Each structure stands twice: as structure tokens, then as C-alpha cells.
């Protein structure tokens, strides 16, 4: 039993969904999504028992490439995030009718497959292939099933595609360079490379470009808001819930251990960039008129903080970043789902056209309020654990980082509550707002439950990720 099982389930699921036909597609997809989630929980159990669930096999002899899927705590945590969120995302779409839904759901599973592969791959080329593979399904999902004017959508999506692809190419160059040095792209072999500071800087920058665009950090974020707005909500959830984390995960897994000297040398710049993202994203979010765009900018702010945490190169920073990644994954999926629920009823995403929902649907309002509060990191929610740990790690570097990064606490509350006030409160809306359906309720309650449970008891996840993060830290500190 090893982790390739999950990839197989997801890939088979994608094909099965495609073959199942439009009527059955959503249910088949959900089934395979749940199967993958179940399998990853079983695998987690095996992993916790100390079994080896990695899978390494020579793939291409010349050049020397392995099909290496390595599962450590960090990968398992991210894998769980992917496989748990995928069925939730699939389930969340049950209220909508999609044209050609067999392709739609197959693409979702395929994307999930590619993202899971990215989190698991420990060979550079394999990782790169999965990394790029994940771009293809989201491109089609956003392009075909997106909303708004077709021309504008095409523009936004193509921009996103080319932009991220262009960034990734630099990563490929870095991999090729390292292959020439090491003769292999296995992570362990790359760790053994003794690169000079100058080489490391270039590799670091090449990786940085790929990741900064994907995460996204300012000023590489311009694709984000438009794509989030134009993509169907399912696509937005996949993007913001999981795909952004690919970039952040890769920073921890690839960028920092492979170029530790550069990371240490220019730490302040990159932390600063992350924090600038926090402030910038928060301030831009204040005046957004479109709910999804607002959430996009809030995402920008949150990932900025996470990125700042990773670049501190401390255990707290990395751990907080991973915790916050998972927490943010859940909360942002919940919030986008809430936006979708409003859209299903009002056919609008403009905040100005909402308002007064609380009297019509108090249940929904309560749930969205909890999500809003989780997003602003109220203690007892999972996000607080992450944000606190990240800010604490920043304070270890420099207290000003913590203070500036901490403005997210204030500004985040400002824009989220402002949004909540104008979208949900106020005089009863003239348009009717049907109360949440059972499906919608289950999805939201699941997400909220996860947030609260880990908010009060994050120990399982912390214990899972800490050993592998410590290992990565020893890699980072191997040259001094």
C-alpha cells in the first residue's frame, strides 16, 4: 500500500466520470473523491504506524528520472487537504447544472490528481510535470464554465495560463541546471549538491518567479482577482483552496532547502514582500464591489502572511505557514461557497445589490459570520493557530514584521466585517432569499466543524507535520 494508490484512484475516477455520462457524472465524481479521501486517511494511519508508504521507481533511464512519490508528514498533510477538499468542492456544486458535466467533473478530479501528485512528487521532473499538469484542467474549467463576458473571461484566463506557465519555465531551467550538476533530480540527490552562493541565488530566483506567480505574491498577483471572479465557483475553490498552496508548499519543499544560502541572505526582502502583500491585499479588498474579488484580495493578504512565515526559516514560521495553509484552504472554500449560495439566489456578486439577508436566512448568516470570523483569525478557529504561529515567528525575526503583518488582524476585520455588514445586514431585502438547502448546509457545517475542531485541538496536524519540517530545517541549515 503506498501513496500512488491515491493518484490512481483520482485518475481512474477522472476517466470513469468522463465515461459515466452527464447524468451520473457528479455522483461518480463524488464517489471517487470520497474514495480518495478515505484512502488518504487509511494511508495516514499506515504512515502514523511507521510504515513506508513512499513509492519510488526508475522511470526514465536516460536522463535519469524516477517516478518518486515520497510521503512525509508535510506531504501527507497537504494530500489530506487536497483529498478532503475535493469531495467537498464536488459536493458543493450539486445545486448547479453544468453543461457537459461529465467533462466538468472529470476535469475536477483530474486537477485534484495533478495537485496531489505535486504534493507527493520528490523527483524534480515528475514534480514539474504534475505542477504544469494541474494548470490544464483549471484553464478549461475557467474558460468553458466560467461566468461573465466571454471575451473578458478568455483574456483573464489566458493571461493566467501564460503567466503561470512562463513563471514555471524558469523553474524548469533551474531543474535542468541542477540535473547537469547532480545527474539526478531526486530530492535527496539535489540536497547533496554543493552549490555556490551565486548559483543558489539564481536557482532561488528562478523558483521564486514560479512560486511568486502561483501563490501569488505582489506584484505578481494581477491574474488572481480576475480569474477568481470569472471562473466558476468550483474553479475558484480549487484555485484558492488548493492550488495556491501548491506554491507555498513548494517554497517549503523545494525552494528553501535547495537554495538555503540565498534564502538566508535575502530573507528580509522576501518577508517584506509577503508582508507588503498582507497590507496591500487588505487595503485593496476594502473597496471591492464584487464579493468574489474581495475574497480574492483577502486571499492575497493571507497568502502573503503565509509566505512571510515560510521565509522566516524558523520552525514556527514553517509550521504556522502549513497550519495556516490548511486553515485558509478550508475557510476560503467556505467563503467562496457562501458567495455561490448568494449568487444562486440573487444572480449577482455585487455587494451593493445584497444586504438584509440576515432576517431572511438567519442560519446562513450565522454560518457566513463564522466563516468571516475564522477568516479574520478569531481564537478557537483554526486560522488563529496558523496566524498566531506565523506572527510569532515573524516577531522572532523582527518585531516590526509582526506588527506590520499583524495589521491583517485590524484591516482583515475591517474589510470582512464591512462586507458582512453590507452583504448580510441591514433592512430586509426585497428579493426573496430561500434558506440554505440541506446540501449547502452540510457543506458549510463540515467546513466549520473542521475549523473549530482543529482550532481547539491542532495537535494531530502539528504532530504530523513537525518531524518533516524539522528535517527540512536541517537541510536548510546544512551549510553554514
Amino acid at each position, binding site marked *: 500500500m503506498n501513496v500512488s494508490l491515491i493518484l490512481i484512484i483520482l485518475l481512474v475516477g477522472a476517466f470513469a466520470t468522463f465515461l459515466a455520462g452527464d447524468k451520473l457524472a457528479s455522483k461518480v465524481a463524488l464517489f471517487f473523491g470520497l474514495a480518495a479521501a478515505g484512502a488518504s486517511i487509511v494511508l495516514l494511519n499506515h504512515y502514523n504506524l511507521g510504515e513506508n508508504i513512499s513509492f519510488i521507481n526508475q522511470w526514465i533511464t536516460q536522463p535519469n528520472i524516477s517516478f518518486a512519490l515520497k510521503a512525509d508528514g508535510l506531504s501527507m498533510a497537504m494530500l489530506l487537504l487536497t483529498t478532503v477538499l475535493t469531495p467537498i468542492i464536488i459536493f458543493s456544486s450539486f445545486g448547479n447544472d453544468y453543461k457537459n458535466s461529465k467533462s466538468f467533473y472529470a476535469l475536477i478530479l483530474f486537477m485534484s490528481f495533478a495537485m496531489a501528485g505535486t504534493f507527493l512528487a520528490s523527483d524534480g521532473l515528475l514534480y514539474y510535470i504534475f505542477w504544469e499538469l494541474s494548470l490544464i484542467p483549471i484553464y478549461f474549467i475557467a474558460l468553458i464554465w466560467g461566468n461573465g463576458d466571454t471575451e473578458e473571461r478568455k483574456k483573464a484566463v489566458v493571461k493566467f495560463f501564460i503567466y503561470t506557465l512562463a513563471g514555471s519555465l524558469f523553474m524548469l531551467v533551474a531543474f535542468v541546471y541542477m540535473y547537469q550538476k547532480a545527474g539526478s533530480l531526486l530530492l535527496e540527490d539535489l540536497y547533496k549538491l554543493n552549490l555556490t552562493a551565486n548559483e543558489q541565488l539564481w536557482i532561488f530566483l528562478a523558483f521564486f518567479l514560479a512560486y511568486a506567480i502561483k501563490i501569488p505574491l505582489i506584484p505578481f498577483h494581477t491574474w488572481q482577482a480576475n480569474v477568481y471572479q470569472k471562473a466558476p465557483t468550483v474553479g475558484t475553490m480549487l484555485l484558492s483552496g488548493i492550488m495556491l498552496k501548491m506554491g507555498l508548499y513548494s517554497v517549503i519543499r523545494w525552494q528553501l532547502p535547495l537554495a538555503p544560502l540565498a534564502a538566508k541572505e535575502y530573507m528580509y526582502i522576501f518577508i517584506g514582500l509577503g508582508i507588503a502583500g498582507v497590507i496591500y491585499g487588505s487595503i485593496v479588498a476594502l473597496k471591492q464591489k464584487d464579493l468574489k474579488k474581495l475574497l480574492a484580495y483577502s486571499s492575497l493578504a493571507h497568502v502573503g502572511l503565509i509566505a512571510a512565515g515560510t521565509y522566516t526559516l524558523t520552525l*514556527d514560521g514553517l*509550521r504556522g505557514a502549513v497550519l495556516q495553509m490548511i486553515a485558509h484552504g478550508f475557510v476560503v472554500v467556505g467563503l467562496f461557497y457562501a458567495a455561490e449560495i448568494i449568487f444562486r439566489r440573487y444572480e449577482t456578486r455585487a455587494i451593493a445589490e445584497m444586504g438584509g439577508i440576515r432576517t431572511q436566512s438567519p442560519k446562513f448568516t450565522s454560518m457566513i459570520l463564522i466563516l468571516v470570523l475564522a477568516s479574520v483569525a478569531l481564537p478557537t478557529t483554526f486560522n488563529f493557530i496558523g496566524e498566531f504561529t506565523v506572527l510569532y515567528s515573524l516577531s522572532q525575526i523582527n518585531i516590526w514584521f509582526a*506588527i506590520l503583518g499583524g495589521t491583517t488582524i485590524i484591516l482583515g476585520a475591517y474589510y470582512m466585517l464591512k462586507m458582512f455588514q453590507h452583504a448580510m445586514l441591514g433592512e430586509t431585502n426585497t428579493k426573496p432569499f430561500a434558506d440554505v438547502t440541506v446540501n449547502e448546509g452540510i457543506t458549510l457545517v463540515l467546513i466549520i466543524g473542521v475549523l473549530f475542531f482543529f482550532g481547539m485541538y491542532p495537535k494531530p496536524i*502539528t504532530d504530523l507535520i513537525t518531524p518533516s519540517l524539522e528535517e527540512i530545517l536541517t537541510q536548510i541549515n546544512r551549510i553554514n
Partner: protein
Amino acid sequence: MEMNTNIALVLVLAPFLGFLINVFFGKSLGKSLSGIIGTLSVLVSFIATAYFFGGIAAKPEGIRISLFDWIQISNFNVDFGFQLDQLSILWLLFVTGIGSLIHLYSISYMHDDENMHKFFAYLNLFIFFMITLVIGSNLLVLFIGWEGVGLCSYLLIGFWHKNQEYNDAAKKAFIMNRIGDLGLLVGIFILGNLFSTLDYATLKTAIAGATNLDMYWLSVAAFALFIGACGKSAQIPLYTWLPDAMAGPTPVSALIHAATMVTAGIFMITRLNFLFDLTPDVQSIIAIVGAVTALVAATIGLVQNDIKKVLAYSTVSQLGLMFLALGLGAYEVAVFHVITHAFFKACLFLGSGSVIHALHGEQDMRNMGGLKKAMPITFATMLIASLAISGVPLFSGFFSKDEILLVAFHHNIPLWVVASVASIMTAFYMFRLMFLTFFQEFRGTAEQKHHLHESPSLITIPLIVLAILATIGGLISLPGNSWLNEYLIPILPKLATAEHHLGTTEYILMAIAVVGGLVGIGIAYAKYIKQNTVPTEDAAITGFSRVLYNKYYVDEFYDVIFVKPINFLSRFFRDTVETGLSALVFGFGKVTNEISYQGKKIQNGSIGLYLFVFVLGLCAIVSYLFLAQ
């Protein structure tokens, strides 16, 4: 120990259970039942607290309960634990005690509201978080409560959520609190970095045992924590949310914005007294901020016409006095004033609620008057509370306020002067309130006059209880023979060695304070009873009182300094920077496009050109291959 853990859990979770019941089943339970459940759950907590209070004498070191590991930081773990010692039990007593009374009051007060079950749910949630705040054994558990009460405050201020102004007030309260919360967090970070612990007990031993403390960072930490306290306890510069918070229902104002939540800052500073004692600079800042807040808020209170606004500014002012005491290192005095203040201010708020209830929502004192006859119990209880807050001898406020003034006098005469002036003003505006509300003729509409009535017993009983407490509350810390000081010795060890003597100076000061209070009352009497003045219309207010009436334009100032620039920046970022960055990215695409477009022109099919370029290319390749070496 097991027993204690269980009871502590009951103490904490009873209000939470009440919250859950009211949230999920409140609507179907009916109004009365949901109110009763809400009240009972707090009462259970009160009883549990009483149990611990009874046991604390036998265990002066307090009870520590660690439930589970919560957050792991690289150099330490934060556990989810409780600490039941003298300070937390004292706080729990009046939080749950006054909380129960206010719940009881709310059953009647909120009876006409369709969302009454929600109101009780929020109140219960508030009590739950307040208990967490007080009972936590480390700063992060305190922070849960700290943020939690802020949330409940937000929910309750915006309880009537159809009114966007109320929502604005709620949002403002939450955000200003969050500014303070950031300060608190920064303080927590520094303490964590310095001492690798956030637990009160270990922190205390760490600080006591440290040989060379980094005084600079310690002061920064203390200052950051103080900013947190400022946010929660409405001190300058973060006080403006509290008057706006009066948008919430009156019981909320009484419970959250007078008696309990706003004292969280004082609790925290008292909790960390061992830290603040080491940082005299920060202490001076606290004292000065407290005194200035007391004076500024009192001056604003002089001219307000909204009955709740007067009380709100009075609360800010009294909190300022408490901070003054804290800054001067007299934690026990601050705690004493917190308790007496909780009694009389809760009584005043509930009384004003009773008045507002009777007048169907009228809050402007210019439209009141002469309610003495119609509402005798309300009048009597409010009068007692007013006497207490004004510092009239034998009422509770006299003792606590007098001690603050004494301490101030001993440390710093200017601070004493400021505090005394604030006290005189307090007496004046409180009796202005009393005279305008209860004396002379009724100035409201005939309709309102017709419906004037004394409030039902569910409202008056809490009033009476609080009035009694406001009267006798001073007994817990009589000058020279203070039960409270004895009780707090484990928390504040230096009290054990403090001298308790009352000299001539003290008596003279006491007399000055009393005379001052009476002068304030006298001026109010002269102005509003003898001359029978009624405050003028808004437009007619001129001169300095206009500045006061508009609260020194602080809100407008903040608006110009912070809110407007941020909004401007947001628009600027959204419209200009975002577009610019986007154009930059598209620029790359455009350049590529342009190059290819121009390149296309070269491919015009002219063989001559192709051949020419071919030859050039050939030359280039050949010369690279053979000549470049």
C-alpha cells in the same frame, strides 16, 4: 482535584451550553423559557464560582487545571488551562453575579423583541468568553476570551441589525478592539520570545528569577500590553467606540460596556502586575493616560443629552481613574474600584434602561423629567447609584474613589488635581442626569406621559439588588481595615507589607473629595432645579460646549487621519496601482505581440530578402564555428 476540574468545567461550559441551547432551540422554546435557560446557566456558573470562593481560603495558592496542549511553539507549548486564584475568582464572582442579575433583567426588558432567544444566546456566549478570559492560566487563553468578548460585543451592539448605523457602531467597536488586540498580541510575542512561556505562574517565576532582564524589551512588552488594555477598556486614544456602543440594547451596555468586558484591561494588567512593576516608564504612561482619559471623558459627559451617552462617558472616565490607580501601582485600589463601579454603573445603566423602557425608546434627557413619581423604585435605586459614583460618604464609590485620589496625591500632585476635577465633574453630570430625568415636569409627549409606569418586578429586583450592593460594596475594603487587600495578598504580595494608617493628610484629602463631590452636586442643583434650565437644542449650542458636545471632534479627527486615507489608498490601489500592474503584465504580452507583428512583415515572400538573410545567417554560423574560438 478531579472534582475541581469538573466543577471548573461546569463553571466555564454552563453559559456555553446555554448559548448552544438558545441558538439551536431558542425559537421553539419560547421567549420566557429561553430567558430562563439563559439566566440559569449563568447562575450555575455563579454557584460554581461561589464554591471555589469558599475553597480558596484553604488553598491560598489557587487551583491550576491543565486540560490539553493547545498550541505548540518551537520553544514552548501553550496548554489550554485554567487558573483559579483570588483574582480570577473575584472577577468571576462579579461577572457571573452581575451577569445573572442582568440576564434576569433582560427577560423582561427584551420581551418584546422577536429575536429574544438570540439575545440570550449572545449574552451567554459573552459570559462564556468572559469566564474564559478571566479563568485562563496563560495569556493565550486570556486572548481567546479577549477576542471572544469583542465578538459578543460586536454581535450585541449590532443586535438590531436592520439599522446600519448600529452596525457601523458594532463594526467600529470590533475594529478598535482589534487595534488593541494587536497590541496585546505583540506583547505576548515579546514575552514569549523573552521568557519562552506565556503561563502566568511560570512567567512570574521567570521574571522573578531572571538575573539580567532586558529592560528595553520588557518595557516594550508592557507598553504593547497596555495598548491592548486601552482598546478593551476604552482609554485614550482608543475610547471612541464605547460611546457608540450604546447602540446596543441597554442590558448589554450595563453588562458589557460598564461592568465586565471593559474591565478586562484592568484585569490583565493586575494579572501581570509583576511585569508592570518592573517597568516604571510604562506605569507613568498608564497613569497619565488614565488621568487624561478620566478628565476628557468627564468634560464630554458634562454636556451630553443622551442618557446612555452620559453614562458611557462616565464609564470611560471611571475606567480612566482605574488606570490611574494601576499606573501608580495600586492594583488593589483599581480592583476595588472595578467592583464598586460594576455595582453602581450596572445599576445606573439598568435604571436608565428602565426609564427608556418606560418611555418606549426615548433616550434624550431633554424629553424626560418628572419621572420621580411615576417610577419611584427606579428613581430611588438610581439616586443611590448616583450618590455612590459621586463619592458621597458611606456609599461604595466614596471608598474606592477616595483611595484612588489618596494614591494619586501620594505619588503625584498634578495627577491628583486632574483626578479630583474629574470627580467633581462626575458628581455634576450625574446629578444633572438625575435632575433632568426625574425632577421638574415631564417634557415628553402626552402619549408618553399617559403610558408612564414603573417597570415590572423582573426589572426592579435587579435594580434593588444592585443598589444595595452599590451602597454596601465599600465594606470590602474599608480604609485601614481592608478585607480586599488581605484577600489579594497572594496576587499582590507587596500588600502584605503595606502600611495601613490614616493620618491627618488622609482625612483632609477625604474631606476635600467629599466637598468636591458635594460642590458638583450643588452646581447641578443650582442649575437644573433652581434655575430650571433645560439643555438647548443641538443647533443652539455654542462655544466650548459645542466642542464638548461634539466630543472634541475626535471621531472626525480619526476619520480624517485614518479612515479617509485608508479608503483613499484603497481606491488608489484598486483603480491605479492594480490597473498599472495589470498593464505591466499585459505589456510583456503586447511587446511579444508587437515583435511578432513586426517580424511578420519580414516574411513578405520576397525571395531576394530571404536569400540575403540566409547568406547573413550562413556567415554568422560559419564565423561562429570557425572564427569565434
